[in-house]
Structures are given as structure tokens and as C-alpha cells.
């Protein structure tokens, strides 16, 4: 199997860029002491993945990725961090539960290794192509995507309406101030 047969240099460059960005960001989240830095790292990862999307000719998703994820979701994170003033530095030197990190590391590394190994054992053999609908490259795939969303995935699309309703109601319910009595109790505790 010749992996590198058809690979061109610009493609590799873009992939390496995307991988570097996303991995650096991911590691950044893992190591950031400050949630704001973690959020910035997350943005970096998102960019890296957007670059990968472009390399995969999913331009539309790349744009949506940036607009929705970086432009809204992470901003929301930052908003909450700043709003609550919870940007306290986390002390990473102390392990809360002994052995937690090594256990987690073993688990996750095992998982990753086995997934990658399984993938290579199966030669990343994929199923039959274009079952849902054919995917054209470039600008055309917005139309493909739109068509799929309104035909094959019509129900899923409608279901997202329900999802957003819950999200809105949930946010309203949760942002509402607790009953006066409860607040008073907290104040007392805080003063002890």
C-alpha cells in the first residue's frame, strides 16, 4: 500500500498546518491553567479543524464551523468565564484523586491505540459509496448538503427545532434567580 502515491506538497502542507493547529490547541486546553487560555486554545483547534475541512473540500462546513463554534460557542464560554469571574487558576500540580491521571492516561492511550490499530488492520476500508446522495466538490456541496438536509434528514432537521426550544427554555429557567429564601441561606453560609 503506497500511502503517499497521490499526495501533493500543498496538500501535505495544509494538512500539516491543520494538524499542528488542532493538536497544539488540544494540548493547550489540556494544560491551560486558566480557562480563558483554554478557550483560546479551543479556538485554535477549531481553526485547525476548519482548515482540515477545507482540505476535505467541505468549505461550507469550514465556514459554519468558524461562525458557529468560534463565533458563538466559544464566545459564550468566554462570556460566562468573565461574567462569573471564575477565571481562577487551577493548581494542576496536585492530583485530586491519587492515580487518577495515570489511570486516565492508560485508558485513553489504550483506546486511541486500539482504534488506530483496528483502523490500520482494516486498512480503513469504507463502505459502499454515495448511499445517501453523491457529494460533489467545492461550491456544489452546499447544494448537496441542503438537499440532503431537506430530504433524507428532514425529520432530523425538524427535530433540531425541538432541541433549540429546549435550549432556550433551559437557559431561561436556569438563569432565573433562585427563590429568595435560598439566596438568604447562601448569604449566611458565605459569611461564616
Amino acid at each position, binding site marked *: 500500500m503506497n500511502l503517499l502515491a497521490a499526495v501533493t506538497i500543498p496538500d501535505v502542507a495544509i494538512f500539516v498546518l491543520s494538524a499542528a493547529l488542532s493538536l497544539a490547541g488540544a494540548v493547550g486546553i489540556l494544560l491551560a491553567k486558566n480557562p480563558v487560555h483554554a478557550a483560546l486554545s479551543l479556538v485554535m483547534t477549531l481553526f485547525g479543524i476548519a482548515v482540515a475541512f477545507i482540505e476535505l473540500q467541505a468549505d461550507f462546513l469550514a465556514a459554519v464551523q468558524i461562525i458557529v463554534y468560534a463565533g458563538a460557542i466559544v464566545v459564550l464560554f468566554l462570556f460566562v468565564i468573565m461574567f462569573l469571574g471564575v477565571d481562577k487558576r487551577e493548581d494542576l500540580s496536585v492530583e485530586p484523586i491519587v492515580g487518577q491521571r495515570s489511570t486516565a492516561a492508560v485508558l485513553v492511550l489504550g483506546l486511541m491505540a486500539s482504534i488506530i490499530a483496528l483502523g490500520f488492520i482494516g486498512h480503513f476500508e469504507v463502505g459502499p459509496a454515495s448511499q445517501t446522495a453523491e457529494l460533489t466538490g467545492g*461550491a456544489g456541496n452546499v447544494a448537496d448538503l441542503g438537499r440532503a438536509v431537506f430530504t433524507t434528514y428532514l425529520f432530523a432537521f425538524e427535530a433540531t427545532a425541538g432541541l433549540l426550544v429546549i435550549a432556550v427554555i433551559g437557559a431561561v429557567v436556569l438563569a432565573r434567580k433562585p427563590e429568595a429564601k435560598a439566596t438568604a441561606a447562601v448569604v449566611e453560609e458565605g459569611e461564616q
Partner: protein
Amino acid sequence: MNGLLAADHLFDQGLTLAVFIIVVVKVVVAFAVLMGAVTLMIWFERKAISDMQSRIGPNRVGPWGLLQTLADGIKLFFKEDLIPAESDRFVFKLAPYLVVVPAFLIFAVIPVGGSVTIAHHTFDLQVADPPMGILLVLACSGIAVYGIMLAGWASGSKYPLMSSVRASAQMVSYEAALGMNVVTVLLVCNSLSTRAIVDAQGGSFFHWNLITTGIVPFFLFLIAATAELNRPPFDVVEADSELVGGFNTEYSSIRFALFYLAEFMNTITMSAVMVTLFFGGPAGPVPNIPHIKWIFPILWFTGKVVAFCYMYIWFRAALPRMRYDQLMDLGWKKLIPASLAWMLLVAAALTSWRWALIVLAGVFIGWIALTQAFEIGADRELSDASVLPSIGQRPLPGRVLRRMTDGDAPLDDEASDEEVEA
């Protein structure tokens, strides 16, 4: 990758040296023009506002004070670069660039004129025309908020932080409205490429999206865009009378200059985006004069952009700043529903008149219901104080907040018991 390049016919013959030079030149020219335009814009704003306030404005440096901006720039450049002790140094330094870069990037997809042929290479007068062009605009305006947020937060100071919180909330809120109006335009134009959008408006004034989308989206977009820009009357982020200048309070020297630069650059690019989306971009009557025919679209484009820039200056001079809560109300309760309703109407009208009538009826019912609901909601909010306290009451990060709770008046037990019974 290939999809990106294939869209532009500049690359039809592949990536030759000539093509490469053209691209580089385009980038450099766009950069230079934009920088020049910004200095002019700053001068223009100061001059125009002075005029409206019956003052003279800058008039010493250069003819009509034209070089005043340059002088200010040089002065700022040589000022001492201060970094507050409490700041997060890395982010503090990073933030200005996060503001400037998206401002430049947006301009890359704006078609400033028609197409030109030089050395057998036909190319469009725009830096790039990616198939997702307009989404890039939205993406960049989404990223722009980071600079402001992080600048405020990284300063480690009270007022800038409040500014950050305001900025994030404001820009996320208005981006939704912005996006929906863009979608309305896309419904009419059938393409995401800025060039195609402009081309679709090519015929006459009546082909402009301003008309074809029914005028309303333009105004909605204008309001939303103004809010995205943090320009008056939506400049709560840097409200100097409330927040001492907001997110850039702690900035000085070149970093401050970058924020300043970015603000005006954003004004220009957003004007250009509006021109592109609703006013046909470079479209306009082109007299058939050989060799300089290509210059008229550019002139049309420039003229339209200047008009918008003037409008922004005019807003600044004429309109009082909105209160923060009014701003959020406007965004969520008026702009977003209206944008959504109009988008649906346009979509329905494009399908058939039956659908248009149905959606119209739906919009009408929705409008009544929403108005009613908002009114009731406002009453309830006043009655039981069931929402979060406003931002000004938030404690700051660091020492103070460990001991504090919501900042609501603590209720003693008797009072709360009564309230429960009631």
C-alpha cells in the same frame, strides 16, 4: 483545496509567474489602499464631526489637516508601551492583532470593481473570490469579537472587563440578526460568492438587493452591522462616560493605535460589505470610454462606500448612546424576530404566492404574539425581579468576589418568609 482555486478564472491557466505576481500585487494594493483609506477616514470623521458641531477640526498638519492622522500615528508609535501588572501579558499583547487581522481579511472578498485584463490574464478587482465568500465575512466578524473581549479581560482591570462582557454579549446577539439578513440576500442571489452576488445586481437600480429583498433587510442589516462595529449609537463597549474608554483603557502606544486603526477599518469594510450586499457593489452606469472603462465601477464602489462612511459619522454626531439593556432588547426582541420574519417571507415569496400569503399570516400572528409576550415578560420582570442582576453589579475577579454572592440585597429570614407566603 482545488475547489477554492477553481472558482477564480485567474487560475485557469494554472499558477504561472504572472498570476503569482498579479496576486501579490492585488494583496499589496488592497493593503495599501485600505491603510490609506483608514487615515483618510479618521481625518474625514474628525473633520465632518467638527463641521456638524460648528468647530474647525484638524487643520494644521498638511493641507486641510490631512496629515493629522499620520502625525498622531507617529506620536503613538513613540509613546511608552505600558503593560499593567495585573494583566495577562500574552493575551494582552495578542488582542490588538486579533482585532486588526479580521478587519483586513474581510476586505479581501469585497469586489471593488469589474474585471480587468492585464497581460492576457483576466482577473477580478478583488483579492479573492472564494465560493464561500460571504460566509468568510460572517466568520471574520465573528472572530473580531475576540480581540475586544480578550483585550478587556487581559487588562486585569475592572472597567475593561465589563467592556469585555458587554462586547461578547452584544456581538453574539447581533450576529444572529446579521446572519439572517445575509441569508435573505443569498435567497435572492442564489450564491455565496461575493462576486456572484454583485453580478446578480448588475442590471439597474431595480436589480439591487436593496429593492429585490424589499428594503427592510437593508435597514435591519445596517442596524446590526452598526452594533457589530460598536459604533455609536451602539458603542456601549467603549462608552467613555461609563467605562473610561472600555476595553482599551489600559492600552497605549502602538497597541492602542492598532485598536484605533481596526475600528475605522471595520467601519470601511462593513460599509463595503453593505454596498456589496445591497447596493450592487461596483454596479452603476458605465460610460463606454475605451481603456478607462474599468475605472467607473471602482468609482461607483468608492462613492457608495464613502456615502456609508459619512452616514456612520453622521450617526455618531446625531444619535445618543443606547443604554445596555435597550441595546440587548433591540437585538433580541426586535431585530432577530424581524430578520427571521422577513427571511421567511422572502423565501416563501420566491416559492409561490400561496406560500407567501401563508407565511405572511404566520408572521402577523407571530408578531402579535411576540409583542404580547414581551410586554407581559417586561411586567413580570419588574414584579418579581426574576432575572440576573445587571452587569454593573457583578463583582470582579480576584480578591473581592470570594466573599460576595450575587450582590443582591441579602434578605433576612423574616422578609423572605413573608415573600414565600405571599
